[in-house]
């Protein structure tokens, strides 16, 4: 038996991107890409507050005038020079930095802070992620470019994973028999079915299915999401942000890689880019003052980057707390003035039309930001509602 037939018989197609027939003829669905920068990206080095005289005093070895002036943003901020593609988006109104944000619950531990950011509830529930809960409300499907399901997407079975494989495929019949062997193993059988269905879906969609740099993964992500029945959201991860030393040169490289990846994401999303919102976040900011080794240590306040054709960008949001000593959080970190979850909640409300009650499921106890973040013309709410009634 051919695997294609098998999958059809077992309904694996339905398991993956549900409801292709329901969606046919509908306008393109709003896409969300969640990019998690693991390691604590130094926001003061990305969205640089050049107007704040304290900055140079805190970081004499990290900032220079070129950094502060080359890519000017609103309100006297500047974007890091290596973020070239993102800056072009900003100029077209497709990038929206939000400064001085932090998670509702804080930790200077990478792992705890990442868990908080991914789960979106506190105490952390490692089996339930905010993106999964949002997808459940939106009745959508998700994809993680990872070997295993990250916390953000854990929960109800609404998503799957894909990561470039190094091994040639086994024979179809062997998969069939394994699925039969797993009949009393709901988890193993569901996972194997998902993986086979994703592979099926991917045939031909990804140009280089064995490459795994961030840019390659971002490109694959764009190809998959841009397909007619592609997932509604995807999660990308990128490490290498824990710059305790040699920060200036390390971040220049890292920003260039991030930038290249997001540009490729856009290219491969093609027309879907216009309906896409990208959220780039990190678990915490870093100390305002540089440390003894040309880097910075774990801090608190950071920045959120929203990007995409659906975003109403070209401005910088977030109340600026100042960098004077008494302005700092615990005398060392950027003081957060707004909640990361409040902004993400607002994106979900405006992009996917989630109601206040649904947003309480996603981020319990969080009041979504009232600011408009996305272009109003792309709010597909009426269509979505009619679709949901089907």
């Amino acid at each position: 038996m051919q695997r294609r037939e098998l999958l059809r018989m077992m309904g694996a197609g339905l398991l993956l991107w549900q409801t292709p027939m329901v969606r046919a003829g509908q306008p393109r669905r709003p896409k969300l890409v969640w990019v998690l920068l693991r390691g604590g990206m130094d926001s003061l080095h990305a969205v640089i507050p050049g107007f704040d005289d304290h900055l140079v005093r805190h970081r004499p070895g990290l900032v220079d005038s070129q950094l502060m002036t080359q890519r000017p943003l609103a309100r006297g901020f500047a974007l890091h020079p290596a973020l070239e593609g993102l800056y072009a988006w900003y100029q077209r109104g497709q990038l929206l930095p939000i400064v001085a944000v932090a998670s509702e619950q804080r930790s200077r531990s990478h792992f705890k802070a990442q868990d908080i950011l991914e789960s979106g509830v506190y105490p952390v529930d490692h089996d339930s992620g905010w993106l999964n809960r949002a997808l459940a409300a939106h009745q959508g499907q998700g994809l993680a470019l990872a070997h295993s399901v990250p916390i953000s997407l854990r929960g109800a079975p609404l998503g799957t994973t894909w990561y470039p494989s190094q091994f040639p495929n086994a024979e179809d019949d062997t998969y069939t028999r394994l699925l039969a062997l797993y009949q009393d193993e709901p988890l193993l059988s569901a996972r194997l079915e998902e993986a086979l269905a994703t592979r099926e879906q991917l045939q031909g969609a990804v140009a280089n299915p064995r490459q795994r740099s961030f840019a390659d993964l971002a490109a694959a992500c764009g190809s998959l999401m841009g397909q007619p029945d592609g997932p509604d959201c995807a999660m990308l991860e990128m490490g290498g942000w824990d710059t305790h030393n040699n920060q200036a040169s390390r971040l220049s490289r890292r920003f260039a890689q991030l930038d290249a990846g997001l540009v490729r994401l856009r290219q491969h999303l093609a027309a879907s880019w216009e309906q896409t919102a990208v959220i780039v976040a990190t678990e915490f900011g870093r100390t305002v003052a540089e440390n003894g080794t040309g880097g910075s240590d774990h801090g608190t306040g950071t920045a959120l980057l929203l990007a995409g054709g659906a975003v109403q960008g070209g401005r910088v949001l977030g109340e600026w707390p100042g960098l004077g000593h008494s302005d700092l959080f615990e005398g060392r970190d950027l003081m957060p003035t707004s909640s990361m979850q409040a902004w993400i909640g607002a994106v979900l409300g405006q992009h996917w039309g989630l109601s206040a009650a649904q947003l309480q499921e996603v981020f319990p106890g969080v009041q979504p930001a009232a600011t408009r973040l996305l272009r109003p013309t792309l709010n597909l709410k009426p269509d979505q509602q009619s679709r949901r009634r089907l």
Partner: protein
Amino acid sequence: MLDKNVLPASIATNRFGLGARPGDIEAAAKDPQGWVLAQLQTPEFSPGLPDLEAAWKLLVQDRQQRMAARQNRAVIKAPVTASMAAAPKSAATPASTTTSASTPTTTSMPPAIKAAAPAAGEDPLKSLHFELLQDGLVRSIAAEHSFSWRLLDFFSNHFSVSANGKVLQVLAPLLERDAIAPNLLGSFEEMLLAVSRHPAMLLYLNNERSFGPDSRLGRNRKLGLNENLGREILELHSLGVEGGYTQADVRELAMALSGWSVARLNGQEKPGFVFRAGGHQPGARLLLGKRYPEAGEAQAEHMLRDLARHPATARHVSFKLGQYVVSDSPPVELVDAMTARWLATGGDLREVVTVLVRSQSAWQQPQQKFKTPREFVVSFCRACKFRHLPPRLLLNSLTGMGQRPFAAGSPAGFSALASGWDGADALLDRVDWVARLAGRIIGEPVALGVTALGPQLTPPTRRAVMRAESREQAMVLLFMSPEFLRR
């Protein structure tokens, strides 16, 4: 005669040991618990491989060669400035690498690895890196006392370092040989000290250039503190993130550790750990409410000794160990008993592990641990007697599955939990991996299943294996069976 022991014997060899080799289950059936306890012997690596001193020589040589090459280029390109370029200004910097870092990525996202296998005629540092990695893997596949190798994997991951960059690619694998293995069945205190003083850890967590703001180096040369090692010792290595420490404690430990550094790679200093008194923050420190008078190098040592015996450390490490061996949610009474033994013995690891082995709750069916890629590959090779599989193929396999040794990319190490490894894509990768090697396995599939799993081999798997359309397919079904994926 020993029927009642056959199931415990398969647990002894698969849950405690790294997987049954042919004959192991029969051997363990005489006394499964005793069989496991007899395995508590210090793991031994291949004797011929370079130690820290020899590795250091290579690093010094490599550095000299690179400097000479740079000088030659400078002479050719710009003869006027050649004398300036020749001034060894970097000779004053400790053995640091620009790529040493502590970058958490998920276990599911391994750092990109450029070359999975070395090419012929490559540089000696890279060859040494591969030799060390292969030796650890090959030895655990062949290990007679594989429970101790499991424990070594646990502590090596507890003190995870990533082999990033020229220097750490050879130093990272030495950490488990020099600092962990010799203390594996001794006191945790000595292990924590040995690890914290090892150049791999000092470089990985950026302590080699962390100097007190009021130290001589701090004042005169504007060098300063780096909190990374201090924080990870408290959060990951000892108390645990809920262990009751504050940001002030992180800073105090980092201050005490300032000056704990690494020899320069100029061939002048003795290899390894160096205490730079001129970089040590002077004065008494307050950690977890206790005052530590100024004692130079020994100040941090006193703190580490206290941390190793702290009740939060005892619980944190006991919990992780129970979680590693027995279940993602280890029984509370098991963790309590291990913690109590830790506190009673001052952290004697042999004693703590013995409590684990003697606990009934560690021997329960059903299998609760989903094998990590390393556990899967090692147990597969043990069952198939794959001693001579090319080690590079094994390393490439682990890279492909996201668990290349010393590449966790995060000081928290690899996940030990099912959720880190049982994703859809990861499962499919395993099927394809076994399918690729299935043709090399010698033996009759059902018999192989019995020697590897004993009574844990289920009737449905046995049937599926017998009905397979080819031997190779039978092997895939056997090794991808639920009972072989778990332990």
